[in-house]
């Protein structure tokens, strides 16, 4: 640091910190208490979209649908890697024990329908929204990231 920088350093150090008003911390704490109370009130006033049990029913249903889709969807074109082979062997091992009606074209028709996948996406978003609100973090999304 040259001489002028040293002098500036001394002068700024001499000025030091500014002093906030005497009751500053009390005012901040008061605002925080109000904020916490309001957040709690908001959280309590929001009815959960889906009850705890209903949520698990939907999760189980979606999981079953995905497994069903996995079993009946066409394997990737001429896949020969280890994962592809594993998928093929799981499919063949599982489907040979299922009733013959499931081998019909109905599942393929269902899983090819855009409405079906739109429904799945909607259901997934609903569950995500429910979980998000129950954690009480939805109101904090406006705060920005530091």
């Amino acid at each position: 640091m040259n001489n002028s920088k040293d002098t500036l350093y001394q002068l700024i150090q001499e000025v030091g910190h500014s002093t906030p008003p005497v009751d500053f911390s009390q005012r901040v704490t008061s605002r925080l208490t109000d904020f916490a109370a309001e957040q709690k009130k908001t959280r309590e006033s929001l009815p959960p979209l889906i009850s705890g049990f209903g949520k698990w029913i939907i999760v189980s249903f979606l999981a079953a649908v995905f497994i069903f889709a996995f079993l009946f969807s066409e394997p990737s074109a001429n896949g020969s890697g280890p994962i592809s082979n594993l998928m093929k062997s799981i499919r063949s091992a599982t489907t040979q024990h299922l009733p013959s009606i499931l081998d019909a074209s109905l599942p393929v028709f269902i899983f090819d329908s855009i409405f079906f996948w739109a429904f799945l996406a909607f259901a997934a978003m609903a569950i995500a929204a429910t979980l998000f609100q129950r954690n009480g973090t939805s109101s904090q999304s406006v705060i920005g990231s530091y």
Partner: protein
Amino acid sequence: MRTEHALISAAKKGDTNAFGELVKRYEKYVYTLAFRMMKTNEEAEEVAQDAFVKAFQSLHQFREDGKFVSWLYTIVYRESLNRLRRHNNVMVTIDEHSGLEIWPTDAKSGLEQLTATERITIVRSAINTLRPTEAAVLTLYYLEEYSLREVCQVTGLTSSNAKVVLHRGRQNLLAAIKSMNSKPISDWL
């Protein structure tokens, strides 16, 4: 007395009293940076309060591998700039700097002849003439003794921009002190 880590952990769980302790510990640091940027007590208090409330709301984002006060400074700096932008009276662009930094010897010798109170009054007034970013960078660098890298982390400036702001801030501060000190002291007190 609880450690900073314990207070932060408690505050993350929603303990407002623990956060109140943190406010008491850091209020003068936060308020100083806010005041240097906003220039008035009222605005500085509002910015400092808003910064603490935002810090509490987003405390879960604070990674405890960094300094808590630096994280607070980042919030204060952004909050101040946002408020100044809303009021449309901030210049955050970096323009070219000119000339060499020369400490005016007459100003220095003049300052040495003053009492500490007079000197502080002049320097404080001179800091108030700086642009908000210059005031913030000088405060962090000279008062808090932050390295240039830490200044960049708080302000989001690039290293070269921070150097320019620091250089220009020094020049402007020295010029302001010189112009103020050349006048009779009675004009300032």
